[in-house]
C-alpha cells in the first residue's frame, strides 16, 4: 500500500513538472514569435532633391557638405550673365512696344478727326484695331520682361525647407540642367521610423499604439506611436514578362517566408543629445493599447 502511494507520488510529481515546462515553453514561444516587434526598423526622413529652375554654369556654391540651412537660404548660384542680357533684351522690346503703341494711338486719334474726303473709311476704322494690336504687343512684351526677371531670380537656388545639405557633389563650373537634381536636402522636421513587420503580426498592430524604438547596438530608447500601416506591397511572385504574361515563381510548399509590411511610426520623443540619421537601423516594439 505504501509502495503504491509512493509510486503515484513519483509519477504525479514528474508529470506535473513536465506540464509546467510545456505551459511555460508555450508562453515564451507566443511572447517571442507573436508579439508585435521587429528588428527590421529604419529611421527615415523626407529628402528634397534640389534642382535649378534654369540651366547654366554653376558659378558659386555657398553651402558646405552636411551644413544646416534655413528655408530661403542661398544654396548655389547659376551664371546670371545670360539672364541679365535676356532681361535687358526684354526691357528694350518693352520700350519699343511702348513707343509703337504711342505712335499708333496718335495716328488713330488723328485719323478719327479726318473726314472721308481725306482718308478712306476702312483706314480710319482699321486704325483703332491697329492701336489695340499694339496694346496687345505691349502686354506681351511686359509678360516677357517679367519672365526674364523671374529667370534671373531663379539663378539663385534657395532652400525650400529647413534641413541639412547632404552628399554635396556640385562644384563651381558644373553645368546645371534645369530640372536635374544637383543636391539633396534632408528636411529637419520630417524624421520618422519605418518598422517592417511580418505580415502575420499586422493584426496585433493598431493605429496610435505606443511604440518603443531602440537604435541598433545602443541603449537609446525613442518613444513614438503608430501613424499608419501600408495598404499594399509588391507581389514579388508575379512579375509580368515582355508579352505581359504572368511569371509566377514556383515556391516551396512547406517553408514560406513571411513578407514584411511597412508600418509608419511617428517619433514623439527623442532623448536629449541624440542625433538621428536617416537610414539608421532600429528595433521597433509595439505595445498594443488594449
Amino acid at each position, binding site marked *: 500500500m505504501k509502495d503504491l502511494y509512493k509510486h503515484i507520488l513519483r509519477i504525479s*510529481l*514528474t508529470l506535473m*513538472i513536465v506540464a509546467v515546462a510545456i505551459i*511555460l515553453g508555450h508562453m*515564451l514561444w507566443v511572447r*517571442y514569435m507573436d508579439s508585435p516587434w521587429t528588428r527590421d526598423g529604419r529611421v527615415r526622413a523626407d529628402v528634397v532633391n534640389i534642382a535649378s529652375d534654369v540651366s547654366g554654369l554653376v558659378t558659386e556654391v555657398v553651402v558646405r557638405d552636411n551644413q544646416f540651412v534655413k528655408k530661403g537660404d542661398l544654396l548655389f548660384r547659376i551664371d546670371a550673365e545670360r539672364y541679365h542680357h535676356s532681361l535687358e533684351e526684354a526691357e528694350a522690346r518693352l520700350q519699343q512696344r511702348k513707343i509703337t503703341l504711342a505712335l499708333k494711338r496718335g495716328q488713330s486719334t488723328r485719323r478719327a478727326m479726318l473726314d472721308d474726303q481725306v482718308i478712306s473709311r476702312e483706314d480710319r476704322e482699321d486704325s483703332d484695331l491697329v492701336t489695340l494690336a499694339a496694346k496687345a504687343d505691349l502686354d506681351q512684351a511686359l509678360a516677357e520682361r517679367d519672365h526674364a526677371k523671374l529667370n534671373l531670380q531663379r539663378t539663385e537656388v534657395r532652400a525650400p525647407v529647413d534641413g541639412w545639405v547632404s552628399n554635396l557633389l556640385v562644384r563651381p563650373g558644373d553645368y546645371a540642367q534645369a530640372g536635374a537634381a544637383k543636391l539633396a536636402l534632408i528636411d529637419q522636421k520630417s524624421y520618422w521610423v519605418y518598422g517592417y513587420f511580418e505580415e502575420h503580426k499586422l493584426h496585433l498592430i493598431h493605429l496610435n499604439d505606443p511604440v518603443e524604438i531602440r537604435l541598433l*547596438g545602443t541603449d537609446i530608447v525613442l518613444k513614438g506611436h503608430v501613424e499608419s500601416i501600408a495598404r499594399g506591397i509588391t507581389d514579388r511572385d508575379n512579375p509580368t514578362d515582355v508579352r505581359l504574361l504572368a511569371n509566377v515563381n514556383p515556391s516551396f510548399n512547406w517553408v514560406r517566408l513571411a513578407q514584411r509590411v511597412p508600418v509608419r511610426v511617428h517619433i514623439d520623443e527623442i532623448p536629449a543629445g541624440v542625433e538621428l540619421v536617416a537610414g539608421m537601423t532600429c528595433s521597433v*516594439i509595439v505595445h498594443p493599447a488594449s
Partner: protein
Amino acid sequence: MPREIALLDALMPTLILAFIAALLLYWLLDKVLVWLGVYQFIWYRALFRLSLFSCLFCALGLLIY
C-alpha cells in the same frame, strides 16, 4: 531589458544569456536536489531534469520579453 545584445559585435537575442543563466541555475539546483535526495520520489529522472531546465529557461525568457 533590450531584446538583443551585442556579443563581440555580433547581435544576438538576449535569450542566449537567459539560456546560459538557466544552465548555471539548473546545475546548482540539480546538485541541491541530489543532496536532498529528492530523486527517489521521481519517476523518470531524465524527463524530470529536462523539464526542470525548460522551466528555468522559459521563466527567465518570460522575464526578459
